[in-house]
């Protein structure tokens, strides 16, 4: 089993467009299949995990910030900014009248949404509480899977507790920032997984921001997933020299064989480029387990794609 599934808090990020949320859903499916009870969370977005996990349709919509059951031992939640800030206020303002006055005030709402670090801290606080409640047995889950925003924003988000803990020494925000920081920096309980494509830009960004997140937020990358990798035509040996020879001997002849060969050459080129990028990622972030996932057809819909990805992840040797 992927060792990252043994953690309490599994953070997943990646450059935009790499299939990050599909991978989160696949990790959730795999963990569930291995008997873990999984809560899969998104951060302030229009939720896609319920679709990817084929959550049953609801008679009434589940508000942001509340758990949406998918099946026994599997649920999703959208940790949006507003409900996370309200959650924070609830924790710290026990007088209901006071809380109501603050929450109902639209100007305070504007202020809290735009003030630096408040929403970030509120989201991390909510995640921290979910993990704590899980560990205390107050919440019936074993693993919190957190689908973080794309790399740049994830980096900003994960840095907040460290910065805040330095900036502010006293008060509830400072105390909680230190506690969240401790959880994020505990490699036994928390792991960061980065998803990439085997293309130059995503690989470069993964290397750069993976290193920065480890350095500046103290969260080391513990697993790399390279998605949509093109496998070579032949399982053993390279078809490229053979295709090159055929191509040369066809003397520019057109027709269906030429198309077959041209398509094969393109495939080999892409497979070769992908292999090089995977190796570059491996070399640049040494010692971190790396698994590749092939490009899969999406014709069974998003949930089918996720099940397929989960099967592939299950085959990853440990």
């Amino acid at each position, binding site marked *: 089993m992927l060792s990252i599934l043994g953690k309490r808090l599994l953070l997943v990020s990646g450059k935009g467009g790499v299939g990050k949320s599909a991978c989160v859903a696949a990790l959730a499916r795999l963990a569930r299949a291995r008997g873990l009870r999984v809560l899969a969370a998104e951060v302030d977005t229009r939720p896609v995990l319920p679709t990817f996990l084929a959550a049953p349709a609801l008679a009434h919509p589940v508000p942001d910030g509340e758990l949406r059951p998918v099946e026994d031992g599997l649920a999703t939640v959208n940790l949006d900014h507003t409900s996370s800030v309200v959650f924070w206020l609830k924790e710290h303002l026990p007088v209901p009248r006071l809380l109501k006055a603050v929450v109902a005030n639209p100007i305070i709402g504007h202020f809290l*949404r735009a003030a630096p670090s408040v*929403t970030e801290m509120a989201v991390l606080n909510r995640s921290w509480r979910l993990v704590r409640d899980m560990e205390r047995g107050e919440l019936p889950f074993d693993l919190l899977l957190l689908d973080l925003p794309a790399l740049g924003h994830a980096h900003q988000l994960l840095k907040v507790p460290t910065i805040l803990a330095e900036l502010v020494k006293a008060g509830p925000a400072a105390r909680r920032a230190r506690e969240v920081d401790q959880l994020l920096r505990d490699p036994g309980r928390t792991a960061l997984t980065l998803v990439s494509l085997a293309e130059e830009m995503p690989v470069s960004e993964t290397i750069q921001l993976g290193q920065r997140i480890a350095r500046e937020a103290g969260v080391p990358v513990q697993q790399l997933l390279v998605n949509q990798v093109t496998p070579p035509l032949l399982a053993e040996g390279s078809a490229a020299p053979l295709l090159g020879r055929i191509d040369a001997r066809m003397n520019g002849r057109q027709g269906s064989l030429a*198309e077959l060969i041209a398509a094969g050459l393109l495939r080999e080129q892409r497979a070769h480029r992908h292999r090089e990028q995977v190796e570059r990622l491996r070399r640049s972030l040494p010692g971190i387990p790396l698994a590749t996932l092939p490009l899969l057809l999406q014709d069974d819909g*998003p949930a089918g794609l996720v099940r397929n990805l989960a099967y592939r992840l299950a085959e990853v040797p440990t």
Partner: protein
Amino acid sequence: MSPPGQPAVWLDTLYDHTLLVLCGSGGVGKTTTSAALAIEAAVRGQRVLVMTIDPARRLAQSLGLQELGNAETPIDLAAQLPDERVAGTLHASMLDTAAAFEELLDRLSPSPEETAKVRRNRLFRLMLGQMAGVQEYLAGEKVYDAASSGRYDLIVLDTPPTRNALDFLDSPGRIAAMLDERIVRWFLPEVAGGPVRGGNVGLLRQLVRTSGNVVKKVLGRAFGGQLMDEIEAFLGAMASMRFEFRRRSQEVQQLMSSPATAFLLVTTTSEAGAQEAAFFHGEILQRRLPFAGFVINRIHPFIDAAHAEGQLRPELVEEVRRLLGPPPRSPGEEVPLVEVRYDVEELVSALQQNVQLQNELAAHDRRRVAALMQLIGSRTAPVLVPLLPDEVHDLPALRTVASYFQ
């Protein structure tokens, strides 16, 4: 590649605008599309600025630059496109958030002392690149400056990779909201006597001060007094600039909704990309922003359908066997290419399967495009840009991308 019988996003119409805004979720090819459209417009004779947020180094290099910065840098297109007649000019710039924010401070601040006060603030340093929407706001700012400079006929804006596609449109409003007069007054009783109309100034000032104290106390309890002190100092430092801030964000908003602006939505056929595109399309319409159409990148091309059958075709095996000739027996023979034994049937079977897979991907992409267009009820056909053999980061590849807009 557009479906026949429907108008696509025509370049001629696009280039009638003075600002093209390319939106979409991360990783769908916004930067590449922006560069391709900008180069094409410059070749056609316009004075063009392409503003990008985070280009791959190789994309900067493909424009003939080592790297891009905040400054608008001229690109020598004629030298790089010797076979084309380049009638216009191209400049490029990249938004460096930290540097742009410093520039903005210098410009907005009423005095050097005020600027120094903001810079000293610890929260300000945290805020650089951190506060929600700053990058998006600054992108809008830079566009506004360039658009009002008169130096360009066309500006192509590659929008920041937003966590939420909405951020780009909302951020100016959000920053203005945080510097809302009422909020500033809670934290800064001394500005409470600002531009207040009517007589009873003393009473109002007192009221604001009282409610401000309550707010501060309550928030202090929730977040800690020290953090609130930091935020107060930050707001204090920013307060002197708030009118200018708000005025400029309104100007940026006006520019974005002007008929001389066109929004293009860039997407791919992935599940998440298509969902996001449909959602963002609704938002653009709801805000009455000028929408021009969709660009859908990385469409798998169809290959000759004759190969899409599952059966191994013996005549192909024979032809390939004949073309390959016998495996080389000794080193140095004709084309000394393979050491390994090869199996012609296995090779042809893999080639056929490859075509089958590519065609399935191609069919899938077209179904997705059709579903997306139906979902949003768009009357304009999208521009479909095929998946190109290599990653796009040189000028010839960018010229190829532009050719799909014709």
